[in-house]
């Protein structure tokens, strides 16, 4: 769907050249939600703005739907942009227009006739859940509602791609969740390819299928969201993963936690794909073992559960063995831990 080859953006000033995006290569599949995460200054915002040439690339290719955006002339680019929706951190709505008129704006630009425009806007207002607010001005809306208008506006011309530039960074956690739900809903319903830029790992965890971690203009790690969560390679990725569970403490178990040393201590690792979500309760039902949950942290992501869970299994040896086999059969890694 989107193929990016050797994409670079260098800002030249008199004193120095600043490389914001450095020889970047990425492939984004059709219909997926692709997250790009990085700290401020990592170049992620520049990257997403290069995709519709709000910033002019210094070098490289951006192929969207088989067309190289970088090579397009002004008029071709204008038409291509109508097929790429974009939403912004600060919404960027026209305050002189009502909700309805704001959503109609891209349709006016595309030259859609008035009657058709009205029908389409009505449908979009319904889709983003703003029915009844059509005639409100942006100043009368909350942040979440403004972003809903932004999303409806971005979808107006039936784009194939939606770019989200820190779309939830100006919203409170609850509103962020509702906007993320809306984005997932749109992704499923319209089969849209979504490229999402954020500095919040939580956003990646909740909605992204795949993720790229950016640092100093380069992609340093890339892969399935669940996989990256489970097994972060780079130090910077580990720092982002720690944003979620507070620290790495849940990856190991201190002996102090287990006061009574009976039974078997097992570390369950959930890695995302096809995880049987009810494995613990099923084990307890099917086998004659007592289960004591010692500690752990399991996060739900778009592609399944991720995390570690430390259990204490109490029962006779053969029954515990059978229980462990059952757990392993459910695609969950189970390691027996030696207590120190």
């Amino acid at each position, binding site marked *: 769907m989107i193929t990016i080859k050797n994409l670079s953006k260098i800002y030249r000033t008199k004193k120095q050249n600043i490389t914001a995006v450095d020889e970047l290569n990425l492939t984004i599949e059709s219909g997926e939600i692709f997250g790009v995460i990085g700290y401020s200054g990592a170049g992620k915002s520049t990257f997403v703005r290069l995709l519709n040439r*709000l910033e002019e690339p210094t070098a490289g290719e951006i192929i969207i739907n088989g067309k190289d955006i970088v090579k397009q002339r002004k008029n071709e680019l204008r038409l291509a942009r109508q097929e790429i929706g*974009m939403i*912004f951190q*600060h919404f*960027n709505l026209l*305050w002189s227009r009502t909700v309805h008129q704001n959503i109609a704006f891209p349709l006016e*630009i595309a030259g859609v006739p008035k009657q058709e425009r009205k029908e389409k806007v009505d449908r979009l207002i319904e889709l983003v859940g703003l029915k009844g607010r059509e005639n409100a001005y942006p100043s009368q809306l909350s942040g979440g509602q403004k972003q809903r208008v932004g999303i409806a506006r971005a979808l107006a011309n039936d784009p194939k791609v939606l770019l989200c530039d820190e779309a939830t960074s100006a919203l409170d956690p609850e509103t962020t969740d509702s906007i993320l739900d809306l984005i997932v809903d749109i992704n499923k319903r319209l089969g849209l390819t979504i490229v999402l830029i954020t500095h919040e790992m939580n956003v990646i965890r909740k909605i992204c299928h795949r993720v790229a971690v950016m640092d100093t203009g380069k992609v340093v790690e890339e892969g399935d969201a669940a996989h990256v969560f489970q097994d972060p390679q780079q130090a910077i990725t580990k720092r982002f993963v720690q944003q979620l569970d507070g620290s790495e403490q849940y990856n190991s178990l201190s002996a102090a936690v287990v006061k009574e040393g009976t039974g078997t201590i097992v570390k369950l690792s959930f890695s995302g794909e096809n995880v049987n979500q009810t494995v613990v309760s099923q084990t307890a039902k099917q086998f004659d073992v007592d289960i004591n949950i010692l500690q752990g942290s399991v996060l739900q992501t778009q592609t399944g559960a991720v995390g570690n869970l430390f259990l204490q299994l109490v029962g006779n040896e053969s029954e515990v063995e059978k229980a462990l086999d059952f757990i392993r059969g459910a695609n969950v890694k189970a390691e027996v831990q030696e207590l120190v």
Partner: protein
Amino acid sequence: MFEKWFPNVDIADLNTAIYETFYMTILSLIGTFIIGIILGLLLYLTSKGKLWENKVVYGIVAAIVNIFRAIPFIILILLLFPFTDFIVGTIRGPEAALPALIIGSAPFYARLVEIALKEVDNGVVEAAKAMGAKNSTIMFKVLLKESMPALVSGLTVTAIALIGSTAVAGVIGAGGLGDFAYFYGFQRRQFDVVFICTLLIVIVVFVFQFIGDLISNKLDKR
């Protein structure tokens, strides 16, 4: 009552003067608006990082604007005599004041337009670009539309300055309340005429300010 307080005021002459003041103010305001918007847009669009970024054009427009703003109005009228004579065919009467009034106030308004456009959030312009808008769409539907309240309040300020200028133009024979106050009032030592002209100009200014504020507030949905 009126005759007791203003014994020297001829109502018919006064009406003509009021009409001439309105005539000069409104026509020159229209001209100022059109030329000011064009110059202001040029200043904004050719400045750094904007749609038509162009140092040379910006430099030329800025220089013209600054030069005409620097010339005192009374001197500008005298300077423009040949030009006025060529365009209007006379150098007397309200029509003859129009070129000087417009050329004097359009650069002032152009700067106010430039400031108003700079206040438009760059993000909104960017959003329009991302939607595939043409530059003309961005100009008319985003920049001018979004800055409308500021454009109107700027026009109000300009209108009031213009009313003042029409009075100055009166002194060189353009007609209007300034003319009336100077020739019938000051030169004939009939100070009631000066007084009524002052009063009327103050009222006209209040009316313009009131209407301007009203429209500006009505447009402002922020």
